[in-house]
């Protein structure tokens, strides 16, 4: 079968998608870990910014 787009009648089924042809236990954890790594790197700085801003505001309020 030549590489390239599938024909319409050979389109993937949802089952095939979920089981990844038997490799699901390798493929899906890979994507899950990737999502986790990206999420942590996206959220952690935002949390840190929020903490910093709160700290700066608090310090500003303390000053007479």
């Amino acid at each position, binding site marked *: *079968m030549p*590489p*390239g*787009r*599938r024909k319409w009648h*050979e389109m*993937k089924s949802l089952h*095939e*998608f979920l089981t*990844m*042809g*038997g*490799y699901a236990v*390798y*493929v899906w*954890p*890979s*994507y899950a*870990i*990737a999502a986790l*790594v*990206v999420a*942590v*790197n*996206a959220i*952690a*700085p*935002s949390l*840190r*910014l929020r903490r*910093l*801003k*709160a*700290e*700066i*505001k608090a*310090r*500003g309020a303390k000053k007479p």
Partner: protein
Amino acid sequence: MDRHSWAWFHRFASPPYVYRFAGALAPWCAWTALLLIGFGLYGGLWSSPPDYQQGDGFRIIYIHVPSAYLSMMCYALLALASAVGLVWRIKLAHAVAVAAAPLGASFTFLALVTGSLWGKPMWGTFWVWDARLTSELILLFLYLGFIALNRAYEDPRSGDRAAAVLAVVGVVNLPIIHYSVVWWSSLHQGSTRFFGGEAEIATSMVIPLLLMILGFTMLFGACLLKRMQAEILARERDAAWAAEVA
């Protein structure tokens, strides 16, 4: 030298400017990333057919290759920022390097994990000492060393400069390390090349892969910009402009 032409450059040495610039640019990068990755995942996971030899297992490539590429690009960026900080004494450059390090380490970790998960069904073991994975492992140690040295110093400015020296030494060493690992790997592997399948990458894989690489790069950019913002604000928390922004 026309003073006007350097004005835009000097703005990038100003923490409040870079803080606002990063804050404005990050969402654009994030949305672009989402778009590119969305299309990449559609092409990679859904519409492209399974590989002739590896079945659907090859689809890990869409995570592994972008993260491996980014892990190396991030180190180059880290070293460049460190060099700029050392030579021109721009503190902001050190902030970029310190912000980039954990991000680069994350992507290196991701490359290693996905490489392992890709290797298990293909070659039977979770770890293979091939050139790519071994290089990534050493790169992870380089990142961890940078972070450890930076944190070990009590005075953050000295910590920045010490880690910067380490980064520059590391980046000079990196081609040597990579070459030596490739050489070592070729001696001990004989004819089987673990990631040799890339030479026959099908056209149906190329477009989703490119989309994923670009998308991940945009994602990396967005995360780096946010991290830079946090790092800059932390360093400048006592400044007047910080009180305005908080």
